């Protein structure tokens, strides 16, 4: 149980007081109504020795963190732990931005408990691979500020469930430069006993900036992803897509905000996936267009395939439009595999099990193929295919 702020920097006490004032969210708290988190905060955590899942062989530029949030290893990038005064000034400035989550007690709780805060500078143009190890019976909180200097680069973050329970909270901050194109992919392989909060803040405060986010979620007992994008200058584009494949009692809550504070900007969001067994998914996608942001083009779509009569999907696409000359679309559908699509594959000698696996694969690949990075594309395709082959096996 957590009863006080951590002691990394001074303002943590203030953030903890902000959390205490609002208290833990419950089912009546709009932005947390699908995800019961109270027990995670009331639980006694008993951290064990750190575990490191290591780094991915496919990528030569990497950073790896162990299961207690400490830096394990890095190559071809600069990683430094920020000093308390640097963290202090970062968040004092952050409080003044349009990202500040005043209503969200858990974000303030996350800040109040930060154990580590890293600055990662990447000057490469390829893929920087970050691995986060999960486990060790620990409650872990850390944050990362990315400084990407090249005009085009990809950041891949992999959450690798090693062993043991954890409540793992991370936040990451991107500030894009003019004409910069950043791809950011999160692959989550948490185990059923592991819980997470994944906060992402992408600030597009320069002309012609492009941020392409994607989360591929393969599990986790309770996973909450909070991607927030602020598009503040013209000709900029922001997207955060998601694919999920849930089994058992997995729970995935995708809560996103994409805000347009400038005209002539674009955004896109496609979040889709499959639910099996007793799994649960909640999508809340908010697109906000401020009063003077004319000529915005924004699209959002959520599609859920429910494969079991005990699985549950909730879709809440939301538009808040204050400008009068914009193009916006949104929608959410929930259903099952199309019987004619499956029959088409069966009529081509493909067994029912393999047909379902191929359809699920197609579902995910449609999003993965949008990632314009051949190496990452190949890696993600292989990962998805192998996950689905294992999941469907011969019996499902």
């Amino acid at each position: 149980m957590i009863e006080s702020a951590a002691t990394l920097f001074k303002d943590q006490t203030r953030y903890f007081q902000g959390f205490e004032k609002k208290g833990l969210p419950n089912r009546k708290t709009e932005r947390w109504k699908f995800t019961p988190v109270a027990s995670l905060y009331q639980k006694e955590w008993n951290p064990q020795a750190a575990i490191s899942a290591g780094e991915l062989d496919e990528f030569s530029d990497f950073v790896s963190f162990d299961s207690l949030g400490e830096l394990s290893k890095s190559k071809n990038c600069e990683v430094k732990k920020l000093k308390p005064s640097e963290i202090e000034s970062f968040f004092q400035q952050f409080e003044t931005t349009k990202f500040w989550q005043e209503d969200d007690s858990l974000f303030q709780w996350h800040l109040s408990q930060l154990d580590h805060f890293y600055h990662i500078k990447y000057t490469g143009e390829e893929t920087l691979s970050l691995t986060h190890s999960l486990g060790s019976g620990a409650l872990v909180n850390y944050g990362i500020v990315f400084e990407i200097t090249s005009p085009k680069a990809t950041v891949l973050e992999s959450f690798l469930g090693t062993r043991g329970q954890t409540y793992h909270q991370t936040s990451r901050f991107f500030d894009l430069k003019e004409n910069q194109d950043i791809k950011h992919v999160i692959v989550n392989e948490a185990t059923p006993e592991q819980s997470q909060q994944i906060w992402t803040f992408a600030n597009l405060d320069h002309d012609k900036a492009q941020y392409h986010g994607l989360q591929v979620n393969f599990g986790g007992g309770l996973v909450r992803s909070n991607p927030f994008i602020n598009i503040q200058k013209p000709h900029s584009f922001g997207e955060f897509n998601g694919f999920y494949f849930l089994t058992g009692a997995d729970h995935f809550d995708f809560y996103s905000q994409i805000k347009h504070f400038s005209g002539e900007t674009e955004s896109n969001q496609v979040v889709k996936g499959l639910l099996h067994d007793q799994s649960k998914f909640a999508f809340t996608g908010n697109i906000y267009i401020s009063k003077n942001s004319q000529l915005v083009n924004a699209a959002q779509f959520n599609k859920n395939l429910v494969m079991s009569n005990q699985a549950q999907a909730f879709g809440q696409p939301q538009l808040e439009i204050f400008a009068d000359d914009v193009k916006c679309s949104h929608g959410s559908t929930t259903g099952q595999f199309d019987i004619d699509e499956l029959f088409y594959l069966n009529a081509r000698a493909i067994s029912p099990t393999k047909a379902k696996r191929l359809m699920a694969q197609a579902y995910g690949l449609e999003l993965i193929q949008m990632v314009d990075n051949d190496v990452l594309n190949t890696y993600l395709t292989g990962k998805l295919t192998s996950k689905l082959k294992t999941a469907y096996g011969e019996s499902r």
Partner: protein
Amino acid sequence: MIKINDLHVTVEDNEILKGINLTIKPGEVHAIMGPNGSGKSTLAKVIAGHPSYEVTKGSIEYTINNQAKDLLELEPDVRSKEGIFLGFQYPIEIPGISNLNFLQESFNEVCEYQGAPKMEEKEFLDFLQPKLEELKMTPAFLYRPVNDGFSGGEKKKNEILQLKILNPRLALLDETDSGLDVDALKVVAGGVNSFKTKFNSTLLITHYQRLLNYIEPDFVHILSCGKIVESGDKSLALKVEEKGYDWLA
């Protein structure tokens, strides 16, 4: 090859087929014509095993390698592995899966079932090349998502490509000619004709006699209100072209 006896089929409590009797022998080409809603596509889908249709009466006996099987007992994928092919009127689009991946999965499933070695990608590409050329398809087809963004003609060519890859014993071609211009029709018909051997049989479903100018049937049947009401040779198709279906009522 296939013997359909007194076949009755319903979908959502509506009886669509009301006692079909049809025998197709090895090497024969049969054409089924009939007005809209007469049950032509239903018949093809039932033979291929579509799960939405319920057979309430009758039987389908399928003989391959001198072994007679109760077709209705076989799952749709097993029917395909046993040599039954349905060319779809509306081929399904599958964004996210490349045509090559789909074709290779399909082909290797049949190989595995029949005890033949599976093909790796390079060998499979070599195997595909002459078939693509015959159908005037470029290799770029293989790397596009299955039927996604294909024109009507491209989709139908893709169906015939699958026919040639899987090399079935019985091909059920449901309105393979619809949506094709005359050049594409010739290419598709050429693909179907090259499938014809003394072992293979074809059941063509079509609205128009024009397809039969390119693929010559041995028998033509008229299906109306769920029953075969007339059978004959190619001249029957010409009569339908001239007089429509009213004279059969």
